[in-house]
């Protein structure tokens, strides 16, 4: 009797502790009930590959959130990276190249350049936050506006003005659109990149000094300082890493659609931050896990994809999406609920 009760309460406890995973499963079940053919390998691969570059962005932002910061400039940085990498990776024979005389570069050079650029802006974010004590919301809001200006200037130039940068080289589109054939399905490389970055970030967060410092700063910055953590340095590095991740993700975005504009990535940060929170990252810092972040992104993507798949009218989609986000987090909050 007693052990049974304990067992039951253990199950309940487990459910509460893992409520977001449960929520994701319930969500999928709900969609499947509404439309049984949702349950297909194609849909699974689609959702995973659509989530991939978002996961990379979200991991960048999540680090910053765990620090106790935030980053509104993420989306614009993704756009910057997309535009920069696309402009350097146009096919040699494409008629409307931004740099008509540029030879086709090996893939990694433009990717690194794009990452370097956003890494730099990320570092600048961290610098402003940690050295000038500007609240992250404002620092990155300013950066969001500024980076958009920079991207627009780079983007809207002669010879072709504000045209989507297209005609990407085949190596680039292969990199972002193709995958490994497994039987009748193609398993997109995108997913592999997301997995690779997730592992790297997991290791950084859990196995390195930087990771511990990150949690410490977010958990209690004052205490971290006293504990001998170089708070400013660690903040700058985390913002820089986020910038690098946005950069990679931006190149993926460009490659994935085959073109880029200065509006690529617009508002991604809101989705990413929301996904992190849904995934259990605390906006006040100090709390968050890689699997949580991934789950948060998946929940979002299942909502987006599922609603489109169900053919829900666009306006209703907004309402349902808004409601689901709130409900997901409300459920998650129950585990902290304490009267007590």
């Amino acid at each position, binding site marked *: 009797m007693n052990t049974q009760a304990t067992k039951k309460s253990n199950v309940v406890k487990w459910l509460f502790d893992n409520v977001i995973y449960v929520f994701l499963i319930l969500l999928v079940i709900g969609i499947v009930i509404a439309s049984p053919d949702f349950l297909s390998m194609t849909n699974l691969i689609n959702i995973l590959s659509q989530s991939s570059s978002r996961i990379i962005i979200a991991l960048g932002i999540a680090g910053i959130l765990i620090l106790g910061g935030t980053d509104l400039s993420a989306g614009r940085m993704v756009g910057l990276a997309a535009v920069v990498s696309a402009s350097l990776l146009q096919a040699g024979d494409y008629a409307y190249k931004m740099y008509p005389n540029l030879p086709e570069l090996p893939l990694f050079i433009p990717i690194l350049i794009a990452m370097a650029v956003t890494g730099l802006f990320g570092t600048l974010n961290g610098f402003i936050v940690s050295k000038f004590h500007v609240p992250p919301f404002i620092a990155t809001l300013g950066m969001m506006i500024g980076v958009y200006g920079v991207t627009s200037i780079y983007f809207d130039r002669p010879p072709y003005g504000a045209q989507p940068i297209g*005609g990407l080289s085949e190596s680039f589109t292969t990199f972002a659109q193709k995958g490994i054939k497994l039987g009748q399905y193609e398993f997109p490389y995108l997913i592999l990149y997301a997995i690779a970055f997730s592992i790297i970030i997991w290791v950084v967060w859990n196995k390195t000094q930087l990771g511990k410092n990150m949690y410490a700063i977010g958990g209690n910055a004052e205490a971290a300082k006293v504990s001998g953590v170089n708070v400013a340095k660690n903040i700058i590095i985390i913002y820089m890493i986020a910038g690098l991740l946005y950069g990679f993700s931006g190149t993926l975005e460009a490659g994935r659609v085959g073109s880029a504009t200065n509006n690529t990535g617009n508002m991604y940060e809101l989705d990413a931050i929301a996904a992190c929170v849904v995934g259990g990252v605390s906006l006040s810092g100090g709390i968050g896990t890689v699997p949580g972040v991934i789950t948060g992104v998946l929940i979002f993507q299942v909502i987006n994809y599922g609603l489109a798949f169900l053919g829900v009218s666009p306006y209703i989609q907004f309402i349902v999406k808004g409601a689901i986000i709130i409900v997901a987090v409300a459920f998650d909050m129950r585990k902290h609920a304490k009267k007590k």
Partner: protein
Amino acid sequence: GGTEKSSTDSGKGKDGDLPAVGATIYKFDDNFMSYVRRAMETAADGKVNLMLNDSQNDQAKQVEQVDTLIAKGAKSLAINLVDPKAAQTIIDKAKVKDIPVIFFNKEPDASVLEGYEKAYYVGTTSSESGVIQGELIAKAWEANKEAWDKNGDGKLQYVLLKGEPGHPDAEARTKFVVDTVKEKGIQVDELALDTGMWDAMKATEKMDAWLAKYNENIEFVIANNDGMALGAIASLEKAGYFSGDKFMPVVGVDAIPEALEMIEKGKMVGTVLNDAKNQGAATVQLGANAANGKDVLEGTEWKLDDKKAVRVPYVEITKENIQVGKDAYK
């Protein structure tokens, strides 16, 4: 050339003595408007001091910019409305100072133009791009019915990627493209309609879902702009289209370079070109005349129609007349 110069001018310097024309662009980085803008700058060079503003797709911002332009002493206004119904507010402001207004690209209600003697319009009819796109679809469908009517029911099963809901262009294009196709006597089935918010990425993802759901049933992809059409193509390519004999007709609007490329490669059926050069030039010519207190048409080849509008037509672009599209970027 001359991109930087005229837009950064503050009403002084070389252009300082020229009559000031205050202009607002609904969204600077709109691919079409960026060409119109350039045409305007070229046309303005040495003739008027063109003060350009970016309304960032926000009508309230545009109204404020008009205040600023008037405060800076604009002699005429060239306004690319964000929201066509806000024309009256602009006119009210201009009327007080007796400043002529040339609206361009987004057409205000005729009655509003009617209400102010010094108000004109340069551009197309909003619905026209939809109509032309519809005609293009109808023509292409009739020509390829055998191959494209996959289920052989004689009906055209389409999916439609809409721009931002509520955006006048998105609404007009969505309505008129389908109406036109039907008018041409083609029966249609709408499998899905969803918003891609003008965005290629969102379009790709919606298309992913639709392909997963409807697979072979989709016979046509209609997009409110080329950006979303390209997004759809990226999704289609991933699903194996455009290689071997798997094909899907896709149409867009705007004739952006990448779309022209796709048309040449046979991955896109067609698009609709808006004539940026002439729209921009005409706007500035009318604006300059107005600023100088002359008749707006003086010394130009343009004609006003009965709605006080100078019409610059859209052009359908397919593989046959691809050069027309390319010339736009010369």
